[in-house]
């Protein structure tokens, strides 16, 4: 399978670079950007499992992210246990939520499904904001930093490797979906659900499977994020902006490809941090300029390179094949 070899090569470069960087670079900001790139990349890869591989485009993945973040934060602050346990709880809850979304995906198509996922994430947002007794409501939860692996209190270098681990996990899952029998069946469902069903593929079950898997992975990353940034706030962790961001990286990098989300994340995260660093302090009046550039870039990329960066690679490959 030559395409796998190719995909491995690209992945080797990306993840290899990420692994090597902390050994040479000590600058905290650079490492912080790297952590964010890997984390957003992992989140987009998780989204890709449902969106790219199963064809279920959701704009509500922040639901699972938020569940993971809150599970970790609450486990630490309210129950005095470690974030790893919280992550586990988050995964279990997200799988439950994933079942619901999976059910919806079997009843709804296209924009309707997308809208229902948004509604779901908003219901969670509001519910968590109101449940002041348990979740501290709109006040959010500050997550304490306690050094150590069990408490996920890592230094910058430690976090790079932690984020890398998460990224590799999601990548591995994507590759599994590309290679395995389930993955092929899923591709069939994605391309033409009726035909796939006619062939005896259990389309509905597979879709639910993909969505729940995606949910679980997103939740894991959410828990990690909570420990990294240190503050969980319902209006942020369940926001539509975040959901869009997960999908965005995958689309720009190439939906349905394993490395695409990471390429997309590199581009978008860097663009954002670069623009924000360069423009935000200039003058109060120019505070929004970087977002304008970001939005325009989004429109242009989505319009002119809809298959994403990985698509460019495919085009180049095709051209070479003809040459």
């Amino acid at each position: 399978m030559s395409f796998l070899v190719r995909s491995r090569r690209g992945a080797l470069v990306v993840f290899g670079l990420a692994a090597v960087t902390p050994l040479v670079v000590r600058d905290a900001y650079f490492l912080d950007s790297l952590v964010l790139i890997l984390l957003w990349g992992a989140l987009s890869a998780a989204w890709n499992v449902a969106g790219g591989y199963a064809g279920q485009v959701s704009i509500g993945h922040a639901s699972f992210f938020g569940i993971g973040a809150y599970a970790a934060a609450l486990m630490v602050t309210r129950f005095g246990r470690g974030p790893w346990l919280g992550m586990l709880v988050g995964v279990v809850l997200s799988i439950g939520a994933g079942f619901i979304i999976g059910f919806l995906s079997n009843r709804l198509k296209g924009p309707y499904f997308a809208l229902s996922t948004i509604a779901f994430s908003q219901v969670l947002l509001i519910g968590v904001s109101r449940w002041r007794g348990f979740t501290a409501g709109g006040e959010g939860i500050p997550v304490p930093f306690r050094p150590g692996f069990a408490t996920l209190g890592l230094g910058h270098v430690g976090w790079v490797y932690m984020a890398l681990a998460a990224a590799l996990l999601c990548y591995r899952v994507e590759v599994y979906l590309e290679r395995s029998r389930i993955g092929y069946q899923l591709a069939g469902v994605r391309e033409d659900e009726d035909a796939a069903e006619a062939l005896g593929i259990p389309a509905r079950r597979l879709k639910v499977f993909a969505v729940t898997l995606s949910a679980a992975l997103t939740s894991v990353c959410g828990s990690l994020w909570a420990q990294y940034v240190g503050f969980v706030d319902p209006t942020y962790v369940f926001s539509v902006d975040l959901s869009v961001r997960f999908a965005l990286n995958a689309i720009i990098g190439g939906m349905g490809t394993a490395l695409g989300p990471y390429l997309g994340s590199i581009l978008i995260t860097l663009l954002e941090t670069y623009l924000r660093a360069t423009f935000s302090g200039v003058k109060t009046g120019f505070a929004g300029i970087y977002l304008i550039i970001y939005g325009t870039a989004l429109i242009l990329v989505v319009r002119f390179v809809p298959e994403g960066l990985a698509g460019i690679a495919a085009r180049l490959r095709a051209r070479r094949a003809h040459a």
Partner: protein
Amino acid sequence: MDPARLLGPAQIDVLAQLAVATILLGGIYALIAVGLTLIFGIMRVVNFAHGEFLMLGMYLAFWTFALYSVDPYVVVFVSIPVFFVVGLLSYVLVMRGVIHASHNVQIFTTVGLSVVLQNVALVAWSGDFRFVRPWHLSTVLRAGSTTFNLTQVVAFLIAVALTISLVAFMKWTHAGRVMRATAQDRDAATLMGIDTDRVYRLTFAIGIAAVGAAGVLVAPLYSVYPTAGLQFVLLSYVVVVLGGLGDMLGAMLGSLIVAAVEVAGSYLFGTAWKEIFYFILFILVLVFRPAGLFGQRGAETLGV
């Protein structure tokens, strides 16, 4: 909160006022949703930037009021052609390229547009809250012990007028019929010689004109600021789905239902829960009657 169980005179007053609040709020939502249902219904595009066009309409009302002291009710007539042009431009510059692309591409194009518009407003006009305060803002009409805020009443009446005229347009004009045909089956329409690009252009322009006018009308009722559209955009989608895609009367009814759920929910359980109610309603409708409460069964799969 335990509202009165007995229906004494005080409670009837409360009910009457709640009913009025529902109708007037429903009118505002309808105004905003009518443009959306048109675009969504005919072009099958989820326009995330819908709220931002509303915001631009609000700013138009603000600046004309602040600089030239023109009343919003006068500006609204100007806003319709202005936003018609804005809609045309947006279509030609942004939407046309992605009209045949996948849903995801469309979604993200409009998301990008939304971000751009929000921040253009922020950079140009700063994040300060602005207000439009025409002389009639605090005017209330009273019928017995029930009050009607004049500005809201006018918004309601204009929403009704707008919806009716759009319905008439869709039903009885040639252009309207052409638009409906394209909505039903894009490919068949092309085969029949319809220039779908022109249809979409017109649809988008009309839809944006409607929401821009809505912005002008609601500006006196709420604050004007760059992210003002966010308040309304998700809610508009709930309305549109409830009423059925492309069905403008459905949008009006959907607006009333959403407003009723909000008002009743706020009164009985507290304002904190109001959005949960209509989101849950939204999900239920999507699951059991995705064509909307008033749409034909199966209509939602057409063209999707």
